[in-house]
Structure formats: C-alpha cells, structure tokens
C-alpha cells in the first residue's frame, strides 16, 4: 500500500465547470479509526470544493475511503483531523440538535436500499421530513403531492412501500430527499439495487432535479452510467484524492457502459484501475 501511495502522482484537480457559491468544502480531512492497537487511516487528507448546483460523482473501489468521505460531506460523520464545511458551516462545531436541523433542511439523503419507512404510505414518507421541519399537516400534504407528481408518482400517492416497485420506491426516496428544499442531495449508490433500465431512469431523474431545481447532487457510486450525468468526478484512492475530472475530459467508450469495470474510463486510467484492483484485494 505504501509503495502504491508513494507512486501515486499529485492529484490533477479540475475546477468546477459551474459558477456558484461553494456549498461543500473540505480541508485536509483525515479520518483515523483505532481498533485496539491497530490504527487505520481511512482518509489521509482530502481537500475538495463543491459548488452549488453541481452534479458530483465520487468514485473509488471498496476500501478506498470513498464511503467515509461521502459520509463526511453528508454530515453523517465527523473528521478526526481537518474541517468539513457544509454551506460554510463547520459541522464539527454543531451539537446534536443543530446537526439534526442541518440534515433535515440542508441535505436530502437517498440510499441504495431506498429506506422507505415501511409502515407509511408514499405520501407519508415524503411528508415525514416536513413534519420534522415543523410544517403543518396540510402544508406538508400539498407539498408532498407536488413532489410526488414531479418524480412521476402522482398516481401512487397513497400506496404502501410494498405495493411499489424498486424504481418507484427510489422515486419516493428522491421526493422525500427534496422535501425541505435542501441544498444538497446525497445519494449513496442510488442505482445499486436497481436493474439497468430503472437505474438509468433514476439517474435521469436526479439529473433533471439537478438542472431544474438547482440542487447539488453528490453521489457515491460504482456505476459508470453515473459518470455521463456528472459535472465532475472525484476519484478517491487509498484514502487520498486521486483526481477530479470534468465530464468533458472523460473518454466515454460507447458500448462498454456498465458491466465492464474499465468501461467508460480512458486508456490512461487503465494502470490505475489495475492498482485499485490490487488494493481492493488487500482490504
């Protein structure tokens, strides 16, 4: 690992293609886990800036620290060293109440497993964060119905989760994530449990929400289809920032999207993919 890290070149960082205020900023973020005598450095100092309205994908093999970093910029985890600013607020300074407020209003979460509350209807799921934000039942209902229409579920408002397909559940989750007009949507492998076609629809929906509502979308993904929709891709490798690429700099090879681990990645990345594979095996 140490050799690989030593060989890693200085990260090439492409600036945002959109202009706007910085919505997420990390400064030299490190995360150190202590398990008995063993110290594990999951993140070894990552600094990125994400601008409002961007569509960002965080890519990286398992064990690269991608998930840790993703949780960090979603306000779900705090760094051991360094700073994470969400909307210019240092999340390490917030107490439980303020963090809950931030999660409720500033960030919308989308999960690989959808995480629709099983005892509630689609509408109740969407209105739950509004309830937490203190909206009245009537306000929440009107807004929730509007959001469900927007994600294409206007006719399934009162369906229970088990009456909905995976793709529909994920649409409910997107509507729920948008409930309190967040600045950021944080999507963790949103297509991971969906088939190819449905996954594509979800990516399109996220992309559409990003463009029409101007919400910043940050996804962690293995899915190379995501790349096509992203403004920038943050590559994490071995706990470090490897590279930030703009979409237009990517060479997308048609016909190899999905399935192939090397699909959509330019030939120059081949070597990196191989070393990542090795790193993945070691974890």
């Amino acid at each position: 690992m140490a050799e690989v890290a030593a060989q890693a070149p200085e990260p090439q960082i492409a600036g945002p293609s959109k202009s706007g205020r910085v919505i997420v900023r990390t400064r030299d973020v490190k995360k150190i886990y202590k398990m008995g005598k063993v110290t594990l450095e999951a993140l070894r100092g990552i600094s990125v800036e994400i601008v409002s309205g961007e569509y960002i994908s965080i890519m990286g093999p398992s064990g690269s620290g991608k998930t840790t970093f993703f949780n960090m910029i979603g306000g779900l985890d705090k760094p051991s060293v360094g700073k994470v600013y969400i909307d210019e607020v240092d999340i390490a300074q917030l107490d439980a109440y303020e963090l809950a407020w931030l999660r409720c209003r500033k960030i919308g979460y989308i999960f690989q497993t959808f995480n629709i509350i099983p005892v509630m209807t689609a509408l109740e799921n969407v209105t739950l964060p509004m309830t937490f934000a203190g909206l009245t039942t009537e306000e929440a209902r009107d807004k929730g119905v509007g959001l469900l229409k927007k994600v294409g579920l206007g006719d399934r408002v009162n369906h229970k989760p088990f009456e909905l397909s995976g793709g529909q559940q994920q649409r409910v989750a997107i509507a729920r994530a948008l409930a309190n007009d967040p600045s950021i949507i944080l999507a963790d492998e949103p297509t991971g449990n969906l088939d190819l076609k449905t996954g594509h629809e979800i990516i399109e929906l996220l992309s559409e929400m990003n463009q029409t509502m101007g919400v910043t979308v940050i996804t962690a993904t293995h899915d190379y289809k995501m790349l096509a929709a992203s403004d920038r891709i943050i590559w994490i490798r071995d706990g470090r920032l490897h590279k930030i690429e703009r979409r237009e700099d990517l060479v997308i090879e048609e016909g190899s999207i999905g399935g192939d681990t090397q699909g959509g990645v330019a030939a120059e990345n081949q070597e990196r993919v191989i070393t990542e594979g090795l790193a993945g095996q070691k974890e």
Partner: protein
Amino acid sequence: MNDGPGEKIMTARDAASKGVERQISLPFSKAFEIAWKGLMVRLWRSLITMGGIVLAIAFLVSMWTNQEIVKALKAVPESDPSKEALDTAMKGQFSNSEKRSIRTGVLAGPGNEVREAIQNKLVSAAEYNFVLLGDNVSDISRAIQSDIDVLIIYDIPDGYRVQKVLDAISEFVLEGGGLVIMGCDPVPAGVSEQNAGQPAFEEAFQELLPARPTAEKIQVDAQQYSPLHSKSMAVADWASAPKMEYSISGLRPGAKPYVTDGGASGKPLVVYRKIGKGRALQFLATYPTSKEVADWTLNGKFLDACLLWTGERVLKEDSPEIRLSWLVILSLLVCVVGITNSMLMSVTERIREIGTMKCLGALDGFIVKLFVIESSLHGIFGTMVGVILGFSAAFLLAFFKYSALENAEDAKFNPAEAAPIVACEESLTMQQALTIATSQVAASMAKPLEVTVKRNHYTIRYFPGMPILKRAIAAWCIGAVLSVIAAIYPAYRAAKMQPVDAMRVDE
C-alpha cells in the same frame, strides 16, 4: 486542528449566525401518530408481544379478584340464612386443614380420666393423632414448642404449674397454636409444696381464661362464644353450680339451644370462646371428663373447629397465598424481560428505519418517544385484555365454588348429633360408658345427611365491585408502568443509533 491563516475557527455561535438553528422537538401527538401506525402494521407481532403481559396481568388480577371475593364473603353478616354453609364452603380459604392432619398434645395429670382412657387404649392415638405429653417438665416444654398444633389441658396438675411450662404454653398460644383448657378448677397459689411461690394457674392465664360465672342466673351470648357454631352450639352448665339458670342469646335463627346440666346428669359442658392475642378454646367442662369430651376434643371433626380458630399457625407455615404472590411477581418479571427482548429485536430489525429517520431530521428524543409509546400501547391494551381475562376466570371460579345451600344443616359439627350424649349413670363404669358412646357415634356417622336444596350464589349477592375495580385499575397501572420500564433500554439503544446506520446494505 491546525487552521491555516485567514481561516477562523468557527464556534457554535458562528454556526448559529450562519443560519443553522436547533432542530425542534416534535409534539407528542406526532410521535403517537407514527407509533400507532407502526403498531397497526405490525399487528400480529404486537399481539404476540402483548401475549406475555396479558397472561401476567391476568394471573395478577385473578389472584386479586379471588382475594377480594373471599374477603367480601367472609364479611357476610351472621343473619344470612346460609352463612354457616357458606363458611363450610369457604373453609379452604382459612387453611389447608383438609390436607394436613392436626397433631394434638394432651396434657393431663395422673388420675385424670382422659389420661386413663388414653393409657388404657380406649381411644386410639393413631385415629385421633394425638400425643400424651409426658410427666417430665422439660419434655412437656419441648413438645409444646415443637411437636403439636393444638394443646389440650385436662385438669392441669399441680406438678406442671411451674413457670417453665406456663411460659411454653403462653408462647405457643401467642404464636398461633390452639389451646383447649378443660376442667380447670381454681387452685390457689402455693397449694402444694412443688409450686410454692409459683403463680396459680388462673393467674398465669388470666388473659386466656374467661371470667367464671358467679351469678345465679347466667346470661350467655352465644356469638361471644362461637360465632361459627352459634346455630347449633349452645352453652352449658357449670358443674360446681348446677343450680344456675341459663338464658341464651345470640343464636342464629333456627338454632337449637343445647343446654346441659353438666356433671349432674353426666352430660358434658361445653363453653368456649376466643381469648387473648393467640386463639384458644376454653372448655369449661367440669367433672364429667368423660368419653364424650375426649371424643369431641380429640375427634377430627372437632379439631376442624379448633383449626378454624387457630389456623394461623398452619397458614404461617405453608401459605398458598404467599406462594401465589411470588409466582405472580415472578411472572411479571418474566413478562418485563420478554417485552425488553422483543423490543430489542424490533430495534435491531429497524436499524435502517431509525437511521433514515435520523437522516431526515429526527432527534434522539423522538426515537425514544416512538419506542416508549409503542411499548406503552402494548402495555395498555395487553393489560386491558389481561384484566378482563383474569377477572372472568376468578369470578367464574368463585361463582361456582362459593355457592352454598340455604338452610343446609351443619354436617360438620353438630355436637348433639355428632356425639350423642351418653347418660352416665352411677351404675355404669367408665369403660361401659365409653363403649356405649363409641357405638352411638358410629351409628350417628352412618346416618345419611339430609339437605335442603336451594343454592345461593354469594359471589353475586356480595360482589365486591368497588374493591375489584380499584384492583383492576392498579393492575392496569402496573402493566403500563412495567411495559414502559421494559422499553427504556431498547429505546435508549435505538436513540443511540447513528444516521450512518441507514446506509447499511445488509439486512
């Protein structure tokens, strides 16, 4: 935490100025709404969880209901036409006398007829389960303290009137032993050389003994002597004053007064009453310490009567009520553990759900509320069902058990019938009299009982509505409180879940 130049360290105050506020706590009604939905969706599971509390509370309520009904029926007024039959039906509630044979100690001085009858094997120790206490003072004291349930004293001899024996008897009575004193004539202190300086028997037992009648006309209140047997029981004579006239009051309607003239005609005299802190029966039977008296006192049926008065001692050793209470407490604890376990499982099952709620902005307190409300609802509904079940079971049981036949003859104890009187004529020897008596007793036993059949259901007539309602409410509170207690730890665990847990992919 080294901040670069130009970047200031942000404080919580700065965070607030940046527009981050504190998340609001949701009103209770919202948490209730969500918890209620969850309960309805997981109805079957909830019902199974409730099962434990239903059974535990049903157990508790059935015990309490039974206690209240028994209490109410014990307080049934004497004027009730079948009070006596009811008492018989309820006898099991005083003690488990029917399962345990009572051991009687007999203390009789040398020359006493009963002692002689026993020594000549005219009455059988095996049949009556008695023991003739020896002549040795130490043996007597020890036997009184350890071996017997009821002590019968016949003509206590001077030799035993020593402080040690008197103390042993006092202690025995205070601990709930039954004491029966027969034919105890006053003997002045220091009458013999052995007990010179010792208290007279009556002085020692002043508390235990009723006052001797002195008037020529004696008013007797039967209830004062034996509320239980005031129907057929009566009072009798004073042998040393056979000329006295008796008038008897306090008998139940229809009771037959049973007056004998004591030793004059050889009929035994039976007067007994409750005395002192412990309970003692006093038989002021005088001269004719005959086979009848021996029979009555040693006879099992008669001892049943003693036991009704002295049952405390037996109850103390082996109270089914205390054992039952322990069982109830134990089952309540088991039920708490059961609820905690099923709530913990529920928390584990819902890790992602809880994590998601926290991602959506739920506070720890809200998660705690959710689980505590869910558990309280289990408790409230489970207890409600348990109260109804337990009450119904106990009520039905009492309804059939504590019914009694009106005007039923008291078959258990009717001295006149159970032990017919033998006329002790001068010409008969003691042995002859005993033989006649035995045959008559046997004949009377063989007679079938006649009963008037009219059943009274006392459980309904004397139903203790208010006390049972109070107990039911108490049980309800206990159930609700216990289910909240059971939910504390699982709710705490749930609240400590991290929002990140929502990201878990594995089930």
